[in-house]
């Protein structure tokens, strides 16, 4: 077993455990902090996949913005954060069955696929993933249109969020 595999197994186990705690912990502030742990694990997975730029974006956007936004929302709805009722609804076993069946179905479908256990080709020397990504995002032959549509979507979300949360009094 190589060092890379050991790192993957440790990080993967931590990510899954932290993810499980996100959905089961009762206190929502703790759940948001476990989400930060999960997102860090996913950032390390990106690094293992040689996608360093995405790992940085994951830390800056997901942990720096989204997780903090969650903590703000939990604090703004504070009286309900430590709610008196149960954390899960009464059909939680149905949800557990659906989740386990989804996982089993995905795992079964994937292991019937021929490319399931293939290994990665070595990265050619001089290959600059960040340079390639920047080129793909801004060249008209690449993905400049989805990139611009994403910026319009973010603007619409910004206006929508301000409008929804605005106190009309």
């Amino acid at each position, binding site marked *: 077993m190589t060092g890379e595999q050991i790192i993957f197994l440790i990080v993967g186990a931590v990510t899954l455990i932290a*993810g499980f705690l996100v959905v089961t912990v009762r206190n929502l502030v703790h759940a948001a902090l476990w989400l930060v742990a999960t997102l860090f694990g996913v950032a390390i997975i990106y690094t293992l996949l040689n996608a360093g730029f995405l790992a940085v974006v994951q830390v800056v956007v997901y942990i720096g913005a989204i997780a903090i936004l969650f903590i703000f929302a939990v604090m703004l709805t504070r009286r309900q954060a430590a709610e008196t009722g149960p954390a899960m609804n009464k059909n939680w076993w149905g*949800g557990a069955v659906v989740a386990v069946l989804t996982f089993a179905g995905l795992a079964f479908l994937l292991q019937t696929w021929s490319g399931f256990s293939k290994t990665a080709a070595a990265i050619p020397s001089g290959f600059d993933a960040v340079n390639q990504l920047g080129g793909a995002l801004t060249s008209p032959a690449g993905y400049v249109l989805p990139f611009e549509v994403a910026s319009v979507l973010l603007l619409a979300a910004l206006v929508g969020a301000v409008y929804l949360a605005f106190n009309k009094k």
Partner: protein
Amino acid sequence: MIPLSWYLILAAGLFSIGLFGVLVRRNAVAILLGVELMLNAVNINLVAFWRYGDISLMAGQVFAIIVFAVAAAEVAVGLALVISVYRRRNTVVAEDLDLLKW
């Protein structure tokens, strides 16, 4: 080297955990936390397929970036909705919001 299967199984597990959270949690903020886990699982798959396929085709990473943008928009609007509902109804429990239920 790590086989592709490890990444796919990890992503499937993370997706199922997120699905469980979305289905069973009562608090609307906790449901959005589950959605975040599912989006992250999808992103692991996208980046893994980029790495294990033709590495010069950047579609996998570009898709992951678009998913980041959509996730940020989704969280901003979703949490604004939760806060707006909390102001009007004084609750964030999803099953109390049954205005459209007969």
